[in-house]
């Protein structure tokens, strides 16, 4: 049975568990520092980096301001090019649409290109319940799937695993799902990649149905865009007879020209490359080349909820480059699973509460899973102001108050630090405002270094007072 984040504990409890795992912390630290280094070099190479970010943020704001018009244009263009467009209000509806489409083909095993949205809606589990085996084909997604694990990063879902663990998973599991791993497999990354190539090749050659996401959908032309490294995306997009692309409504960009901005930013910021090895674009279907049937499923699943939030809607600009998590000191200590969602790190701390609301203790704890150090603001290619959104969401949590979230929230950052007890004591010593980091205060204890040189935004004081009052009341 596919695992999911359903019923996941709130951030403080989940992170306490993860922080205790030394191996995981080491894996996450090593990987994030490697990507950070590469990204910094490639971003610095562009003298116009800030101008590209300005354009990207402004284009995404245009998308959000004209979303209805853009989606109707997508529908018109995709339909004219021979595709079929479906609309899904929520995860259940999206899963039902995809399941019915696969059922109609009679296929029992399908291939998938890595897509965070299909993880978000739990598509693999829904297909499994209908007797359909969906095989992941991205290397990291394969590691997660074979290990019966959960993704911990939006670009590298198996970032929390090291080569030794991956070797064990491949040697143990591949044979249960197809071609076994070669005898005597070592933990050399090249050998592990080769094992994945061999294991998946027969699946690609036999696949009749593929499911993908998309990085962008161009409204003006009805073109979908998938950016990837390994070629598994090309395999799925090209070799299957039926292609089903499941895409969030915020993924549109207005014009073809807009791609020149996003394609120049994405790989640089995500993996520290000028372009990812492969970018595929397609518009509907083409005779004699690729799938004969193409379905586009446009998914809301909370996006219109986020859109209605005047401060939070900027989170929908996200192009899932992962830079905010690679640079986040909290993520570095907890890894991705602590966030209880396929969207971890700073974007997860704001996007999940915006998509789902703050009415349960898990999502309500996430805006507190941050020190407000602002490092994410600096790397985000679409200029999301994380600190603004985090503070606004904290105010919403404080003003909501129908649930016992407060104590959990108070401990959210403390639990992830090197010396939780010292941190908690320091927070108390600072007059109990520590987790909200008022602008004037230098953070005590282990967080001090992060805050020293940063101008922190002011905290909405009203909200904090009411929040604390209820919290104290509950403790008494």
């Amino acid at each position: 049975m596919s695992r999911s984040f359903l019923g996941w504990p709130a951030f403080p409890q989940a992170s306490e568990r993860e922080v205790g795992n030394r191996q995981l912390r080491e894996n996450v630290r090593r990987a994030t520092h490697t990507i950070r280094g590469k990204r910094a070099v490639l971003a610095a190479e562009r003298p116009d980096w800030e101008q590209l970010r300005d354009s990207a943020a402004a284009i995404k704001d245009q998308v959000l301001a004209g979303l209805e018009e853009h989606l109707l244009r997508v529908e018109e263009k995709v339909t004219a090019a021979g595709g079929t467009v479906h609309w899904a209000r929520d995860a259940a509806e999206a899963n039902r649409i995809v399941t019915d489409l696969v059922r109609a083909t009679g296929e029992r095993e399908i291939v998938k290109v890595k897509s965070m949205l299909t993880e978000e809606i739990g598509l693999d589990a829904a297909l499994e319940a209908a007797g359909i085996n969906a095989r992941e084909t991205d290397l990291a997604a394969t590691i997660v799937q074979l290990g019966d694990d959960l993704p911990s990063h939006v670009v590298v879902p198996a970032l929390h695993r090291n080569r030794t663990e991956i070797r064990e998973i491949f040697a143990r599991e591949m044979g249960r799902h197809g071609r076994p791993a070669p005898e005597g497999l070592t933990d050399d990354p090249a050998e592990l990649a080769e094992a994945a190539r061999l294991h998946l090749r027969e699946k690609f050659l036999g696949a009749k149905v593929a499911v993908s996401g998309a990085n962008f959908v161009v409204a003006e032309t009805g073109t979908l865009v998938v950016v990837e490294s390994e070629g598994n995306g090309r395999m799925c997009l090209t070799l299957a007879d039926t292609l089903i692309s499941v895409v969030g409504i915020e993924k549109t960009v207005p014009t073809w020209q807009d791609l020149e901005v996003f394609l120049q930013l994405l790989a640089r910021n995500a993996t520290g490359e000028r372009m990812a090895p492969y970018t595929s674009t397609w518009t509907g279907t083409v005779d004699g080349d690729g799938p004969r049937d193409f379905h586009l499923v446009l998914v809301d699943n909370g996006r219109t909820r986020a859109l209605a939030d005047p401060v939070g809607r900027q989170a929908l600009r996200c192009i899932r480059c992962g830079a905010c998590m690679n640079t986040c000191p909290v993520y570095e200590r907890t890894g991705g699973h602590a966030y209880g969602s396929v969207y971890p790190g700073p974007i997860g701390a704001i996007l999940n509460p915006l998509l789902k609301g703050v009415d349960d203790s898990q999502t309500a704890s996430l805006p507190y899973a941050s020190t407000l150090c602002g490092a994410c603001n600096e790397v985000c290619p679409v200029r999301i102001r994380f600190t603004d959104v985090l503070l606004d969401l904290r105010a919403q949590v404080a003003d909501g108050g129908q649930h016992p979230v407060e104590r959990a929230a108070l401990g959210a950052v403390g639990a992830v630090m090197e010396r939780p007890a010292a941190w908690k004591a320091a927070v108390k010593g600072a007059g109990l405002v520590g987790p909200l980091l008022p602008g004037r205060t230098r953070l005590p204890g282990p967080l001090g270094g992060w805050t020293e040189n940063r101008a922190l935004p002011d905290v909405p004081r009203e909200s904090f007072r009411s929040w604390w009052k209820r919290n104290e009341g509950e403790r008494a």
Partner: protein
Amino acid sequence: MTAGTAREEILRRIRAAAVPPAPEPPRHYLRHAPGLDPHDREAGLALFAERLEEYGARVLRADAPGPAVARVLDDEGARSLVVPDGLPADWTAGWTGRVRVDRPPLGKAELDATDAVLTGCAAAVADSGTLVLDGGAAQGRRAATLLPDLHVCVVRAAQVHSALPGALARLDPARPLTFVSGPSATADIEMIRVKGVHGPRRLAVVLLE
């Protein structure tokens, strides 16, 4: 009917979100490769070759395609080659291995069992060492450039744009496009770059002056 309902409901929610209008985006970024004089053709070609080599692709600069293509195929030990229908005959004239034309279309298993594929391209980008295939002249369908393990691509110097904006403006979005920037790769295991996963593991470019 249900589909109609979902569509109307999502569009209604979007209207209800009442997002204020956004200004025209600024576009003050470069339209050519940073640090490169856009009129210096030779510098552009040199950058293109350098970027490709950084990815681990092989680059041969040549005056005519035939001998260079034959040399790459022999050096790489290829014995069978698939070519798209309509590929100029002189591109393969100097090679003695087995050449199969993808007409009628070869099966997936046949493509998979073929050592190499030879194509032209629709455009190229110096800044990122990128080739763009659009299924047009001398390129064929996507499956044929994907399954063989070696892709040899002939690029005319005039097709090389300094940076992505120039190439995108020339491409037709109605065609299925594949932007190739180096051979297939992954860094999913401890962020260590490994060349070659599912796509062609070897890429060679013959750059025609």
